[in-house]
């Protein structure tokens, strides 16, 4: 696996220097290391991966919300040992505002005819508000179209260059991004005979003195 990643990393560093590509090792037993690139050059990186390395199948695109960047550093993203990458990682870390967190998009790519994969590529937005932008890869991989719309819907990541970026799962009038960790679900408490913590709090608001009578 690392063989592919190193190969891809070398060519990306040569072709798309702006991508700031680094390798992140996975601390878990799965050993699926990933390639971290800058958000605005994701599409260029994908173009290189698709055209030069033959990864023709983008299987999975998904978002992850990291309101707490310290946790993000702990999980899944331990920078690789060599000095070069370390420097990059540091630079990356400095760019990330520590207090506001960020959104991450993870791509899983495969090579269908040579049966290689997965190549995990990830990218982080600058913050979780206005700056949550990532270049869309729909022009390279059509399969990202609906998945990117889903990430936009549920996480609020704006994919620049997406042909039809609308809400996909929720209705168009909906304004929140429900998969974010800080999303608060609408208060539609109702009859619930077996209540547990969250429900009880809501119930108390709905019926100020539930047992008054």
């Amino acid at each position: 696996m690392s063989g592919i990643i190193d190969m891809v990393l070398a060519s990306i560093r040569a072709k798309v220097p702006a991508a700031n590509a680094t390798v992140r090792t996975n601390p878990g037993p799965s050993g699926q290391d990933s390639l971290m690139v800058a958000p605005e050059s994701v599409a260029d990186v994908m173009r290189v991966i698709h055209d030069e390395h033959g990864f023709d199948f983008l299987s999975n695109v998904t978002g992850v919300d990291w309101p707490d960047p310290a946790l993000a550093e702990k999980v899944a993203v331990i920078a690789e040992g060599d000095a070069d990458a370390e420097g990059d990682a540091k630079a990356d870390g400095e760019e990330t505002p520590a207090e506001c967190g960020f959104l991450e998009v993870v791509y899983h790519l495969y090579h269908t005819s040579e049966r290689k994969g997965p190549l995990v590529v990830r990218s982080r937005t600058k913050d979780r508000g206005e700056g949550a932008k990532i270049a869309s890869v729909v022009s390279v991989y059509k399969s990202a179209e609906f998945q990117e719309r889903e990430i936009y819907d549920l996480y609020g990541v704006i994919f620049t260059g997406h042909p039809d970026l609308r809400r996909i799962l929720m209705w168009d009038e909906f304004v929140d991004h429900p998969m974010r960790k800080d999303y608060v679900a609408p208060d539609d408490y109702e009859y619930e005979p077996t209540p547990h913590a969250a429900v009880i709090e809501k119930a108390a608001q709905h019926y100020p003195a539930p047992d008054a009578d």
Partner: protein
Amino acid sequence: MKDAKHQEPAGKAGKWTIPGYGLLQGLFVSGRNMVESYYKKERCPVIQYPEEKADISPNFRNFPFLCYDGDRPETGLRCTACGICEKECPPQCIYIVMDRDENGKAKKRPKVFDIDISVCMNCGICAEVCPFDSIYMDGQYEMATDDRFEKLVLGLDRLAKSTDYHMQLRPKEATAVMEKRKAAEEKKKAAAAARAAKAKAAAEKKAKEAKEQAEKNADDAKGGTE
């Protein structure tokens, strides 16, 4: 596709058919199904539900029930209100209140045990995690009602079912559980006896020690006064 070895084709290449042959084949199959449905059970597997019922596998699980030993649910309930099932239940449809005596001491039995079967997802995780062989999955499914609020919350009165019921439902599992419980009980009894003996010994020893201590203290006191 470098290493995809193509092998013999599976299509029906080169065969000539007359138009309409496939349609006639279709008619033949449906016609055969119709005719055979009159005399072949396999072609007419209808079970006329309310009158006759399909033999459902004993493993079938629908909603949970609580098992009690003996013949009175008030006393024999195996449940200790530990709350493990309440915590593990994926849709959070179990609600338990521990029964307590006047001093607030837990009586190790539920005062309230409600399962909201309008939410229950029949997953069986409660039965799986229960360490006290108390909660099992029932095969009862005829629960249709027109009152969602009153009839779909199962309280202790509707949940508690005797071991005989369990035995009837799943003899194999129930027997295994009974044997296990019996063994455990015996072990417990033995352990209890041993513990009692030990406790007795300890108590004796303690008493002895206390006595000695008292004596010693008395001695000391005596010594002190001297």
